[in-house]
């Protein structure tokens, strides 16, 4: 039982990442009709916003400490962060420690800008082109973006730790009546799950309860009629692209303490997130979220040793098997609408 609870919890953080990426992916598809294969790259750029902020906050000048020697026996040069000079040692250390959450402040404008530039500069020219063209151009864009990141930040993963306060783990087992250390779960993964629930809730609330959101939903249902009412739906859809980029970027920022960011992390998530969108139903926001969590948790269960003993390698293919099963029984996906990608 404890193993089942543990794998369920474990599936939540992976599911959170899938759900957040898939949400943006399906939002773009629902509004603009574009299959955006560069969406994983937006997740990756978000993660590197955290790396950038971490480096900016750690910018230092060197002072020579005559009392200590380095590995060659020379007087040691010690890096002193500028934030220590400006705010004092304790506050400076606290600011650097909280670099990842602080990165959200950088990621929001950066991702909005990247999203709008991407949509206005390239993707809008492919609205009326076949989906195959859209996939090719956005996939190409994803490769370009990841190579740029590789050139700037290098090929290696860059450790980006969570704040000290969230580095431990919570002993769930004791809370549920099990022995101590039977079910432990890292604090930061809980933070990530809570964060993703908040972001998903905020996106739904934005679409459901604001005039802007109402117009966007109307545009998703019948773009032409909304246009005839004199509403500039294109401008709103462009902003929705920016919003989707922000969601993917924030998912990337908060994911960095779970897994050190590297240039191909977007590609690692993209294919799985696309499967999530298809399983959830192309263009369906609740479908993307439900499928994200469902597949994340299933993948986690498939990693259990006794299951892998019966079917070796099942954890690597479970998502695709489930996708095939769902598409055979529900061709439009879990919550897909009629008419989407059926022309």
């Amino acid at each position, binding site marked *: 039982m404890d193993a089942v609870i543990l794998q369920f919890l474990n599936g939540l953080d992976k599911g959170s990442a899938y759900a957040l990426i898939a949400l943006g992916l399906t939002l773009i598809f629902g509004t603009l009709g574009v299959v955006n294969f560069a969406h994983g790259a937006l997740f990756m750029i978000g993660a590197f916003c955290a790396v950038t902020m971490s480096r900016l906050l750690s910018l230092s000048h060197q002072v020579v400490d005559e009392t200590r020697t*380095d*590995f060659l026996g020379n007087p040691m040069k010690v890096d002193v962060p500028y934030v220590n000079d400006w705010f004092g040692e304790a506050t400076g250390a606290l600011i650097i420690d909280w670099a990842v959450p602080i990165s959200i402040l950088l990621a929001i404008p950066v991702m909005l800008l990247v999203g709008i530039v991407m949509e206005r500069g390239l993707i809008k020219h492919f609205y009326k082109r076949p989906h195959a063209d859209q996939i090719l151009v956005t996939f190409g864009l994803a490769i370009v973006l990841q190579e740029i990141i590789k050139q700037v930040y290098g090929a290696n*993963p860059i450790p980006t730790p969570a704040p000290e306060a969230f580095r431990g783990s919570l002993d769930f087992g004791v809370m549920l009546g099990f022995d101590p*250390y039977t079910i432990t779960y890292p604090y*930061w993964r809980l933070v990530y799950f809570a964060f993703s629930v908040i972001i998903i809730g905020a996106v739904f609330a934005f679409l459901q309860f604001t005039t802007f959101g109402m117009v966007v939903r109307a545009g998703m249902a019948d773009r032409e009629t909304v246009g005839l009412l004199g509403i500039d739906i294109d401008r709103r859809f462009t902003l929705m692209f920016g919003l989707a980029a922000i969601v993917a970027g924030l998912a990337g920022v908060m994911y960095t303490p779970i*897994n050190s960011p590297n240039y191909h992390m977007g590609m690692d998530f993209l294919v799985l997130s696309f499967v999530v969108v298809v399983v959830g139903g192309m263009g369906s926001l609740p479908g993307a979220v439900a499928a994200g969590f469902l597949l994340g948790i299933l993948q986690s269960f498939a990693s259990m040793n006794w299951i892998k003993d019966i079917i070796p390698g099942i954890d690597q293919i479970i998502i695709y098997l489930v996708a095939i099963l769902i598409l055979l029984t529900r061709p439009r996906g879990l919550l897909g609408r009629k008419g989407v990608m059926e022309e």
Partner: protein
Amino acid sequence: MSTSRFTRRGVLRTGAIASAGLALPTYLRAEAHTGFTNAPGDSEVVLGFNVPQTGPYADEGADELRAFELAVEHLNGEGDGGMLNTFSEKNLDGTGILGRRVNFVTGDTQTKSDAARASARSMIEKDGAIMISGGSSSGVAVAVQGLCQEAGVIFMAGLTHSNDTTGKDRKANGFRHFFNAYMSAAALAPVLQNLYGTDRNAYHLTADYNWGWTQQESIAAATEAMGWETVNNVLTPLAETDFSAYIAPVLSSGADVLVLNHYGGNMVNSLTNAVQFGLREAQANGKKFEIVVPLYSELMARGAGQNIKGIPGSQNWDWKLENEMGERYVGTNAFVQSFGEKYGFPPSQAAHTCYVQTLLYADAVTRAGSFNPCAVVEALEGFEFDGMGNGPTLYRAGDHQCFKDVVVVRGKENPENEFDLVEIVEVTPTEQVTYEPDHPMFDGGDLGECNPGA
């Protein structure tokens, strides 16, 4: 009116013959008369350094490349000479190798056997490399060693720790300076017994390729021999970055020790996940839960940060060896000085083994008086040397494996600086880690005949 003597058919035929000639590997054409592949000219010799520049072992690859550049500088008489000053042989005088200036080309193995073979093949066939070195994965080392054997060039392995490299996949043209999984286990087991006792249940996470398999087999055999029980062994894909699904079941498995048969980025991620899941603080079977990393490196310690504190493992070499363990390990400080002055930080064990391999190759060529791979093989087989940082060392003729002391380390609790991450627990003498070439873990291999190529 002039008439051209060229006909369309003639131009096509000539072009086809010329193209075929150009497309031939270099070792099948011009230098064939010398009797071996890629015989150098009078002024220059080309070495090929094949390292992982991307993938989970990219940190090691970058450091290997730095060491190769330094070795080439020293061979060409630039810099302070490094270990040339401490090496027991005095044949290398800074004038290159046999009077030829040393040049090098590099390739990216990507930690993939296919990519590594392709880049090694390119360096041999297009760039005329006469020796290939580097690599940070045994899967890659075994693949490239096989290629070098076929092509008739020497392979001086970089960081490869699988028993197979000089065991069942040993080749006459291949030589390994780095230690292996059997040696790690033989050195580490007595230390683990002292630290954690004889009544322990171990859960293994193992990288799913030949290094991981032999590492797990070796450490499981050594720990079981002292009374530990192996509860489970779970294979993990080399490309995996999130090990949480593998770590989660460990505490409920009845294990009280987690053995991470991972290296490089794999180990950094799996250890980080293990610490995130509270394994360092956990109690199991009435004992404190422990983590063991059989193959260790300073680079990994740097990547893992605070998570590495107190965790034991083994190394081929450490940059503090001469300072802490005495003059037996002479050469260490000379190398650290050269490397540190040039790059600003101390070298890793990956850098050390690649640097040493380059000098050993150059010395063997010089002693043999020839670049012919078979002459080099003869010069290296049974070669005993000192002054390269590991103490007295033997290149055993039977399997082309180096035998020397093994360093047992653990993550330092209170580092004095960013490079002081590992403390040396003890140095296990060569005799304790020596085995016969036909030991069951190394059996089934055959060096075969050396291949000079052309």
